[in-house]
């Protein structure tokens, strides 16, 4: 059994981070260069961490499987980044951002981490502005803000509809500066395939060069994983096609615990699926809900009509009706589930009946088409490219899609996993969003972890390691890890099967969506676990991988990643099955408010809203690898102790 000690510093919540920083051991500048740190990934978290660690004087080696560190999927975040700047004078504060985030996460995040995130948020905006991120400005030259879901203040900073891109390019530029100075060594087209653990500490990785197929060993004093989320288990998602869980999954198999894998975010505003050839779902930014109104017809028989033929009185603006205080800006989990509910009632629109309208007619009437174009022009253009429909004239069709994973490798307050020396940042860790992430918080967390948190916390671990004493790559653990990678490759390429990896991925995705999607129940999850297990067995029997090991081989890359998705998919289901409550994005049909509950009668929630069970499930589930894919994983628990906030019913009415 692993021990999950959160290592939260003592003292009042608001001063924990300050006192932590003062009490952490430092490393003197002359010694810093003797420590080598491996960072895997160069999204917001990985790039910002690599750059900052190198600025501090550490020897940093950065690995990405992309052709360039600039490609990570942080680049695709559209809407914005939250920060408690209160530039709008609308009552925002660090405490309010903290509270909104912890409530948005349905009281399943760690209090101290979230407060730190809110504190650091203000520094992020300063840092990014100084780097030249072209945030939107008002005419006076100062920064502009917009609103996002789950908040009643305007605290979201943005750069048109490409905030993630601009922040990523900012972090990438900081990384470039350090690569140019020789302080960071950048490995591109280099995929991490295993974690090397020496005497219980993470001390290196095994890497495949995607261009040549060469497998190499890399040692370090600490390993940082910033490899993003695992939503592609569902095959169809808003993730980039290349996004995968291999780095964190192989670390899991080397002993790192996986925290809350079942917390998935299903984003309410994506373009609906159009056919089975589809490779990807495209997100329409949440910022659209600032001005767009979500509706479906009141009557089933209207669903096939053109939207313009449905009278105003026959439209159900269901978010405004059900959650009047937040309306169309209800948090993502709630908006997604509401869309599912109305579609399940048979009131969904479009060919498949799996869609709702996002209508801008009111906004265009109020602001004029020009203003709407200025705010969302690129999103409307993107929508037009994909659907061939003009959203200025007819409402957008949207439907929820897998978008983000709140779960991830378990980390303590230091962002270190239960394997000493292994740090996990950004979406790859589980820590700050609880059971649901608010819009514009992912960018905040990635940059917070990379620029400000890890650089302060890693010295505590490194101080316990003697400088220049990391194990060499001829150590037995390196040899064993490399051999296991080689044998996996051999097994995949040597298999004489008949099915392509992609066909398995499609099937896995469908199983996951059907059995562990927006609404989950015991029977469904049990079936899911059984079917996924069978699919995994078939995979190893029947997969067929083209090409050779020593060359550019996309089939081989995918085959390895899909093998990991199979195992992870099963773990997600197991976690969802064990968590017999509903919270945030995890909705168990057995646990929902009914019209007879007191909270419903008081008007706090609607019937069908998620019902937490704080008495039994106020903990982080940290799953530990059972030793083999078919052995049950071990459940470790980290209790969530709230010192400041009272776990209350989450109400957006």
């Amino acid at each position: 059994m692993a021990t999950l000690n959160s290592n939260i510093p003592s003292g009042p919540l608001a001063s924990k981070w300050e006192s932590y920083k003062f009490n952490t051991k430092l490393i003197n500048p002359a010694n810093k260069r003797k420590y080598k740190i491996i960072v895997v990934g160069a999204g917001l978290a990985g790039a910002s961490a690599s750059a900052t660690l190198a600025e501090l004087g550490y020897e940093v080696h950065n690995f990405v499987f992309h052709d360039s560190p600039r490609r990570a999927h942080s680049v695709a975040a559209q809407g914005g980044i939250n920060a408690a700047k209160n530039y709008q004078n609308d009552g925002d504060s660090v405490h309010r951002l903290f509270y909104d985030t912890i409530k948005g996460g349905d009281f399943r995040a760690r209090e101290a981490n979230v407060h730190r995130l809110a504190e650091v948020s203000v520094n992020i905006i300063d840092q990014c502005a100084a780097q030249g991120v072209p945030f939107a400005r008002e005419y006076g030259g100062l920064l502009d803000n917009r609103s996002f879901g789950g908040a009643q203040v305007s605290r979201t900073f943005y750069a048109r509809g490409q905030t993630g891109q601009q922040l990523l390019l900012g972090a990438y530029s900081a990384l470039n500066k350090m690569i140019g100075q020789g302080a960071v060594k950048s490995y591109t087209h280099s995929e991490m395939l295993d974690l090397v653990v020496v005497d219980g500490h993470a001390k290196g990785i095994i890497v495949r060069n995607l261009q040549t197929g060469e497998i190499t060993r890399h040692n370090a004093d600490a390993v940082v994983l910033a490899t993003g989320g695992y939503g592609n288990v569902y095959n169809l998602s808003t993730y980039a096609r290349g996004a995968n869980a291999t780095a964190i999954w192989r670390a899991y198999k080397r002993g790192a615990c996986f925290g809350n894998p079942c917390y998935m975010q299903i984003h309410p505003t994506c373009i609906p699926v159009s056919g089975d050839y589809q490779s990807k779902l495209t997100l329409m930014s949440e910022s659209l809900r600032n001005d767009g109104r979500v509706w479906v017809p009141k009557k089933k028989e209207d669903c096939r009509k053109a939207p313009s033929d449905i009278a105003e009185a026959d439209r159900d603006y269901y978010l405004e009706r059900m959650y009047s205080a937040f309306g169309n800006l209800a948090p993502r989990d709630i908006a997604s589930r509401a869309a599912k509910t109305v579609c399940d009632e048979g009131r969904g629109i479009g060919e498949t009946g799996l869609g709702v309208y996002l209508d801008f007619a009111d906004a265009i009437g109020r602001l004029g088409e020009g203003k709407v174009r200025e705010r969302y022009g690129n999103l409307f253009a993107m929508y037009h490219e994909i659907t061939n429909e003009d959203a200025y004239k007819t409402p957008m069709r949207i439907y929820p899609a897998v978008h983000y994973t709140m779960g991830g490798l378990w980390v303590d307050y230091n962002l270190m996993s239960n394997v000493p020396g292994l740090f996990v940042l950004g979406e790859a860790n589980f820590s700050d969003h609880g059971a649901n992430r608010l819009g514009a918080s992912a960018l905040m967390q990635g940059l917070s972890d990379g620029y400000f948190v890890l650089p302060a916390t890693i010295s505590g671990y490194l101080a316990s390691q003697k400088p220049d004493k990391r194990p060499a790559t001829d150590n037995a653990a390196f040899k064993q890890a490399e051999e296991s990678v080689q044998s996996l490759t051999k097994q995949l390429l040597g298999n004489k099967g008949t099915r392509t990896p992609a066909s398995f991925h499609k099937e896995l995705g469908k199983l996951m969506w059907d059995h562990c999607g927006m609404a989950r129940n015991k029977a469904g999850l049990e079936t899911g676990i059984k079917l996924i297990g069978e699919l995994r067995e078939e995979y190893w029997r029947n997969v067929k991988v083209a090409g050779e090991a020593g060359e550019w081989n996309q089939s081989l890359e995918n085959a390895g990643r899909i093998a990991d998705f199979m195992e992870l998919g099963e773990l997600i289901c197991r976690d969802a099955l064990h968590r017999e409550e509903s919270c945030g994005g995890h909705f168990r049909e057995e646990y929902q408010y009914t019209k007879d509950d007191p909270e419903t009668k008081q008007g706090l929630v609607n019937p069908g809203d998620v019902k937490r069970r704080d008495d039994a499930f106020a903990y982080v589930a940290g799953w530990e690898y059972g030793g083999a894919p078919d052995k049950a994983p071990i459940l470790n628990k980290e209790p969530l102790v709230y010192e400041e906030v009272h776990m209350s019913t989450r109400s957006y009415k």
Partner: protein
Amino acid sequence: MKVKLKVWRQKNRNTAGEFRTYESPALNENMSFLEMLDVVNEELANKGEDPIAFDHDCREGICGTCSLVIGGKPHGPHRGVATCQTYMRSFRDGDTIVVEPFRAKAFPIIKDLVVDRKAFDRIQHAGGFISVRTGAAPDANSIPVPKENADLAMDAAQCIGCGACVAACKNASAMLFVAAKVSHLGLLPQGQPERFKRVKAMVTQMDAEGFGACTVTGSCEAVCPKEISLDFIARMNRDYGVALLKGEPKQIAGGVG
């Protein structure tokens, strides 16, 4: 619908390549071009043939990974979109579509349609940044930026680094890419201290990578998925000239006391 594909196949950077022709299976016109290639590849894999290697990732036009010259135009027939946002409805049933990699000496072919665009990164390493240490930044609102400058900087900063400008230019010039970077940072007050050092360093690296020169043909602007303007090339040319006139900074002598 069905199409015929004439695709460049090349095993690796050291072997010669050739065009090969493939018939697509029945397609849906709402498929993206890359989804069409996925379908063709599944068929090839099922037949035991080597699938066509092509670069892609986000599939929503922002990561800059996808490339391809489709029917003579980088990123396919439409303006202002990347290959991944090109849909089969842009083609007709029975069309023959020629698919080639981006071609430039500075972008060597890795396999089939995949090229190595590391040269862009190296240009960025040379100067594509504002030197600000983490934690050293002043309050964000202490540096006002005129809205028009911020907007113009954003126009330039939208560059996704795909390399279509190089692919389209008859000289395989990277001027639009470098100009977008130089202009984005050069337009902002934060970028002023390193403005002239930056442009010199980046242009020097650009030349060292073996890209061609600018003949102001406008191809780059026409194919850019973010429609980045030639205006920025003029801006870079001007900054570069000023940088040359300013000369090298005075060397400081001696160490610290």
